[in-house]
């Protein structure tokens, strides 16, 4: 074959590859290099070409698919043969395309065969065949890009879902950690409180007993003065003694009060002495809500309260220490009554109707749910965390020791339970207790 004919063949081959693969030449020269009856099989299953117009359509669809892609081609001849007559040629090439999408590059390999015929002084492409890369399965996707994009999107979705999942467990972890820190803080505060309580008991012993003794002395002195002849001086002494006596009574009264506080504090350190016994929780709740109610009615802050008991009859006997647990119910009810009382004192709440709801429910995982809810003033978020700390109180003056909820918290924790507070200011406060139905023993 002469050199010119071979050069023509190579030109045609180059143009065909430029247009067919790279889409880089204008398509108006297609007539010159493509036979009108061209047949071809592309890399995708439906890429079957039976005419030049089919081929034009294929080029259009390829152009669309490769839009925005940066493609680089490397073509290495596998076998180029020209028939002995010099009028047909078969070129087989290994083609490696590297495609860059969103800064990521994928490599794609396929084999491309082209059949040429020498017609009317021109080499024309009469057939081509692209063999599909093994890992692309699409039916319409010439380069497997669509498939890749889809897979990429799917991956991204999976990453997003995983990230969300991780985020969630991270938040849960943080919440658990905060809870742990909180309960550790409370535990150490409790221990500290118990230690202080013991040390205070010794001086309290002297304060109370010496005050008591001095009162005895005063009364003896008063008896002795009574034996004297009464005059202005004895009357003055009597009055002074009366004042001293009043003061001593105050010392004794406040000393006794301090002693009461110290005793409550020591409940913190009692740990481990109580025993669990199967207890009818509903009955205990009924009894102690009632007791708290009557205690409140007899006290200074009496109010009319509607008590709404909703107790789950299916509740079996619960392993608790009845003595400790009754204190929980008393404390929570007492707090609720006090809170509702304070709300009722506000002039804008003259139509306010206090309601105390106490609900029990057998929950999942053998956990008993106890809700104690009042429609009092609620608890602001800023103090929610502090509520269970010893000595934290919102009550004025001498009304609260700040130990009730702290002891309540400790008792629930000793029962291997949980206590949470839910509240909306001016609407409600709800203490939610979860207790295991069958706690094995008290935590000390």
């Amino acid at each position: 074959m002469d050199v010119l004919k071979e050069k023509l063949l190579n030109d045609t081959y180059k143009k065909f590859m430029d247009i067919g693969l790279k889409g880089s030449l204008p398509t108006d020269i297609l007539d010159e290099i493509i036979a009108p009856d061209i047949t071809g099989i592309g890399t995708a299953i439906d890429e079957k070409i039976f005419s030049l117009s089919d081929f034009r359509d294929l080029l259009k669809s390829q152009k669309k698919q490769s839009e925005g892609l940066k493609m680089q081609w490397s073509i290495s001849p596998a076998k180029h043969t020209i028939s002995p007559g010099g009028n047909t040629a078969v070129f087989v090439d290994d083609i490696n395309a590297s495609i860059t999408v969103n800064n990521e590059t994928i490599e794609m390999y396929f084999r491309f065969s082209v059949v040429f015929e020498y017609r009317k002084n021109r080499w024309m492409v009469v057939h081509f065949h692209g063999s599909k890369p093994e890992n692309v399965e699409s039916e319409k996707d010439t380069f497997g890009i669509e498939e890749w994009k889809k897979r990429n999107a799917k991956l991204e979705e999976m990453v997003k879902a995983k990230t969300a999942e991780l985020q969630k467990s991270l938040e849960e972890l943080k919440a658990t950690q905060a809870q742990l820190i909180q309960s550790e803080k409370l535990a150490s505060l409790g221990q500290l409180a118990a230690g202080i309580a013991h040390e205070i008991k010794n001086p309290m012993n002297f304060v109370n007993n010496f005050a008591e003794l001095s009162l005895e002395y005063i009364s003896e002195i008063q008896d002795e003065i009574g034996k004297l002849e009464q005059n202005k001086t004895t009357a003055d002494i009597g009055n002074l003694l009366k004042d001293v006596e009043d003061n001593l009574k105050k010392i004794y009264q406040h000393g006794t009060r301090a002693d009461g506080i110290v005793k409550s504090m020591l409940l913190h350190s009692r740990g481990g002495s109580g025993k669990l016994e199967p207890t009818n929780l509903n009955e205990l709740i009924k009894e102690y809500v009632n007791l708290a109610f009557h205690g409140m009615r007899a006290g200074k802050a009496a109010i009319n309260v509607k008590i709404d008991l909703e107790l789950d009859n299916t509740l079996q006997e619960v392993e608790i220490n009845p003595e400790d647990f009754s204190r929980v119910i008393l404390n929570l009810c007492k707090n609720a009554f006090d809170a509702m009382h304070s709300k009722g004192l506000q002039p804008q709440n003259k139509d306010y109707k206090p309601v105390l709801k106490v609900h029990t429910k057998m929950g999942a995982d053998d956990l008993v749910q106890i809700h104690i809810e009042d429609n009092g003033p609620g608890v602001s978020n800023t103090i929610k965390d502090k509520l269970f700390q010893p000595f934290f109180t919102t009550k004025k003056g001498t009304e609260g020791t700040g130990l009730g909820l702290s002891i309540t918290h400790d008792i629930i924790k000793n029962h291997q339970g949980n206590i949470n507070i839910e509240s909306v200011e001016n609407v409600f406060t709800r203490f939610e207790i979860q207790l295991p139905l069958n706690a094995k023993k008290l935590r000390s």
Partner: protein
Amino acid sequence: MKILIVDDEKDVETLFRQKFRKEVKNNSLELVFAFSGQEALDLLEKSDPPEVIYIFSDINMPGMTGLELLEKVKKRFPQIKVSMISAYGDTENYNKAISSGAKEFFTKPIDFDSLKKEIKTLMN
């Protein structure tokens, strides 16, 4: 009747002397004091047999604790009654004291009414 009170706080003596002033005055009761466990043992050794018939001891003291004193007294002078007086009225201390032979367990602040009752039963 001689009773011994053991406590590291010196004011305990003033308190007891005043609280039992009538009983001391009419000689129905004699009070002696020791401010540590060792001092209490030394005092008991002085006369043989010891004149003290009842000991009231604090538990938390520097050096020998009240519970250690209790054990030593029970070993050497089993006839002497010992009761504990402590601010630590927890079950652990209570059980330890009773199982070591303490007669009673009083908590601080001391309720002198019950203490007087306890001593009266002894006097009769």
